């Protein structure tokens, strides 16, 4: 399946969805006014991927900031992963946060509570 790559901007994250190399990654910030427009192609991609996923899908979220309208889209995204997981394929999510960023840690915990999906919270140690 064709990879989806979106370069980051000062308002949107870098996205790499590359099954061939086993890389699924969201990094940077997600604060667009029109978050629906940004996430729509990503949902479409996952809908196609869900038909024939890898045996293991490991998705990394390494986000610095996101706005509330992105938080809703990220939940939608995680729900798609939850569905793949429920269909019997292994799905793991790693949710990175800076060690002093309780807000991002708490958001990760919120998603953990809301979904039936293995979400691992992982501290990024400051260099």
């Amino acid at each position, binding site marked *: 399946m064709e990879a989806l790559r979106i370069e980051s901007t*000062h*308002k949107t994250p870098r996205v790499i969805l590359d099954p061939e190399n086993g890389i699924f990654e969201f990094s940077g910030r997600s604060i667009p006014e029109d978050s629906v427009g940004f996430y729509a192609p990503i949902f479409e991609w996952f809908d196609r991927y869900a038909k024939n996923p890898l045996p293991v899908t490991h998705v990394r979220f390494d986000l610095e900031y996101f706005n*509330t309208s992105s938080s809703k889209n990220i939940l939608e995204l995680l729900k798609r992963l939850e569905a793949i997981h429920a269909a019997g394929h292994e799905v793991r999510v790693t949710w990175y946060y800076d060690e002093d960023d309780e*807000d991002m840690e708490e958001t990760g915990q919120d998603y953990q509570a809301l979904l039936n999906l293995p979400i691992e919270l992982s501290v990024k140690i400051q260099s």
Partner: protein
Amino acid sequence: MSMTYSYYKNMQLNNIIFVYQGEVTADLVSSILQMVENKLEGEGEDRKVKKRVFNVMVECLQNVYHHLDALPPTDASNPVRDKTALLMIGREERDYYIITGNHVLNDRIPDLKARLDRINRATKEELKQLYQEILTGTGFSEKGTAGLGMIDIARKSGQKLGYDFHPVNDKYSFFSLEARVSRIPEK
């Protein structure tokens, strides 16, 4: 020109980092965010405080952008609706404050007021619950927003939201919202 100095002094006295009055566009919101972010960066503010201020600012500005009610044109020769607002960011000894001001239709006031009062009455735990309920419940509004903005502002601020509705005429009021972010990082 004699007003310039008093504007300057006034802004300095009120610890205003940034103030804008005019039309609010998506590009403008981006520029302001970048500018204030650079400024916070340059002044060596605590990283956690800086992040919170930035987060609250994003929600406040995008709230105005999505929800302001444009005034109908006053001048028949110029049919453009008035989409202007006020955006202000300041830094006091203890807090950063973010103030927005925009017109709203009077019809919307009871609902807005009820939401703000509910948020201000809620405990930290209740805000978290409310946030999760809205996150998982209703879809997006027609404006593509999730209705989470104010709750998120309150959660990140950790303080009560200040607000005021100033009557403008029988149809519109000027709505101001103030969010504060403590400069003293919690332990």
